[in-house]
């Protein structure tokens, strides 16, 4: 390898990056925009579940229960309904996630038998949201019951039973507020970097083929390794700038706690950028048409990173076969590392497995990429 030739390649590539301000702007502004959109948009915390209430009895007691739903802050009671058909329509049209139906004889039944029921009809299409909403509703009903019990105990002057009760003391570590943003945003960073990285390099080689400059280039003594490094290094700089911007936003804008070590973060990010850019380059070398290269790049990055990296859907909940497939979804390692560094203050040693995964990938990709390029036309 000749440093002179490598430098010439790098310089040329850097000039070409700077000469296409539109693409460069996209490369630098894109992470900002994406962080803004995804950072806010990707959230599973429904703070205000839209519900409807059909209070058939409409007594003081039922109104006080309904006001508890309101006061809990988890729901927004969008509508009061006045018929079973209204319930049907509200759920059909997706106007609410749940409809709470309080029967006409609720107070009387409760007073005479000590037990009564409230019906909650869920639109269970979105299972996760309806699960969460159900949890909230159960919590409110438990509150109602506790109050009933207290009042009963006071009236009878005794404890409900002679035996003890379990006092459940739940505790949450690492993400104490259970804010889904803290867990999702590091994943968003990984996804954005994977997308930008592949986008940056995946056309650099196919563009030279389509413009005819490649034929000139391969008639020169430049080696495959020099071409690869000459193209990757300038884009690596762009990729690291993007990474720095995204990570800074994560900490300073989205207030995700950063508890780990900056150096570990840098090492992991550099490794990941290398893998991502290398993959884009490999696609570019293998596929001579820009159209095909971009389609394949989109294919191997967007959905796999979104769905199989563990950034939204937990990998350990997937079927075994899919779990095995995620081993080659390289962003999963970076997602794990980012979450570890940000939330758990994990050290280099704690993260040796995902780091090793990235190292293996980096070596594999660079090796394959340097071999993939043949200085031939056929």
């Amino acid at each position: 390898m000749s440093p002179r030739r490598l430098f010439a390649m790098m310089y040329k590539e850097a000039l070409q990056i700077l000469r296409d301000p539109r693409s460069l702007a996209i490369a630098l502004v894109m992470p900002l925009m994406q962080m803004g959109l995804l950072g806010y948009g990707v959230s599973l915390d429904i703070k205000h579940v839209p519900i409807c209430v059909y209070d058939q009895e409409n007594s003081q007691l039922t109104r006080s229960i309904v006001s508890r739903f309101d006061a809990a802050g988890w729901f927004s009671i969008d509508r009061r309904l006045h018929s079973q058909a209204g319930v049907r329509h509200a759920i059909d049209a997706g106007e609410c996630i749940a409809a709470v139906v309080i029967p006409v004889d609720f107070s009387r039944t409760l007073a005479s038998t000590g037990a009564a029921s409230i019906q909650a009809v869920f639109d269970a299409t979105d299972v996760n949201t309806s699960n969460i909403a159900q949890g909230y509703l159960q919590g409110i009903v438990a509150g109602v019951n506790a109050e009933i019990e207290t009042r009963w105990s006071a009236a009878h002057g005794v404890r409900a039973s002679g035996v003890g009760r379990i006092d459940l003391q739940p505790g949450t570590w690492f993400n104490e507020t259970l804010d889904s943003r803290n867990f999702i945003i590091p994943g968003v960073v990984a996804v954005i970097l994977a997308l930008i990285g592949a986008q940056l390099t995946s056309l650099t080689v196919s563009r030279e083929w389509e413009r005819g400059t490649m034929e000139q280039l391969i008639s020169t003594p430049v080696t495959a390794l020099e071409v690869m490094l000459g193209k990757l290094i300038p884009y690596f700089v762009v990729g690291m700038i993007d990474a720095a911007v995204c990570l800074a936003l994560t900490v300073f804008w989205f207030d995700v706690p950063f508890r780990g070590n900056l150096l570990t973060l840098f090492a992991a990010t550099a490794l990941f950028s290398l893998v991502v850019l290398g993959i884009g380059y490999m696609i570019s070398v293998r596929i001579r048409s820009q159209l095909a290269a971009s389609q394949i790049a989109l294919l191997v990055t967007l959905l796999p990173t979104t769905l199989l990296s563990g950034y939204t859907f937990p990998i350990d909940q997937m079927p075994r076969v899919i779990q095995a497939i995620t081993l080659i979804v390289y962003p999963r390692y970076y997602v794990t590392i980012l979450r570890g560094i940000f939330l758990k203050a994990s050290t280099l040693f704690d993260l040796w497995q995902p780091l090793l995964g990235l190292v293996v990938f980096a070596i594999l990709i660079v090796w394959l990429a340097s071999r993939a390029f043949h200085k031939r036309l056929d």
Partner: protein
Amino acid sequence: MSAPPPGTGSADDAVIAEGLTKRFGAFTAVDRVTLRIARGEVMGFIGPNGAGKSTTIRMLCGLVEPSEGRASVAGFDVGSQSQAVREHIGYMSQKFSLYGDLTVRENLRFFAGIYRVPAGEFAGRMRYAVSMAGLEGQENTRVATLAGGWKQRLALGCAILHHPPVLFLDEPTSGVEPEARRRFWDLIHDLAANGVTTLVSTHYMEEAEYCNRIALIDRGKLIASGSPGELRQRGLGGVLYELECSPLGAALEALRGVPGILEAAIFGDRLHVVADSGAAGTADLTGLLRGRGVAVGSIRPALPTLEDVFVHLVARGLETRAVG
């Protein structure tokens, strides 16, 4: 005459190709091409589009792997020493292939870096390349905005920055206006004068005249080679006569089947006749025609154009192919 006589070159010829063949599936693009180019020679590669010129040049540069045969360039084997070959050649592809988004200077600097032109020499060589291309004052212009002729000359400038002993130019003048083409050839001759060996392909017949030697290629086969003069002399396999006579039809009829007459064809208001050299003098022809009642105005030997020769050879190639 389907292959040039072998053994005319010497061992230190700049380009040696032996039986170069390239097949793409069932299609044979280049069929056992054997040729030698001596140092400092300008060899023209003439043939219609699709004849196999580009593929041959690409095989010689190491861009395409030959299906059969071997070649050496500047003393290095194309197959096993492709890196060394690339150090010693300059190549200009058919399609314009510099970076349109870089300036003249940046393109030159890039290729200087790739060819590891010594830093101390770069300034001088760049000045030479720029002045050769006639681009003084335009060093900071983006190449995409240059006109065709300048682009070609700049591409040549990039290809010779590292002073390669051998140059491969694949249709460097296609789509360039005549004046610019003329200047381009002057450049090539200047280089040849400095000992650079050049293989240049073209489909402009008149450009063949500028070469020291030409090789005619058709449908992948080398059908003739030699200097333009030689080819004109021998290419038809006989002597060309131009006859003014009437009626032309009767004259054509009269010459058909006469021993020693190889070809006869109406050419405008005249008759072109190719006779076996020595077999038929002008006197014989006149007598023959007069005997058939044809009035003969004038008859004189003519020098064929290269185009005549090429058409003749291609036609003959077709005949023998049809027979065989």
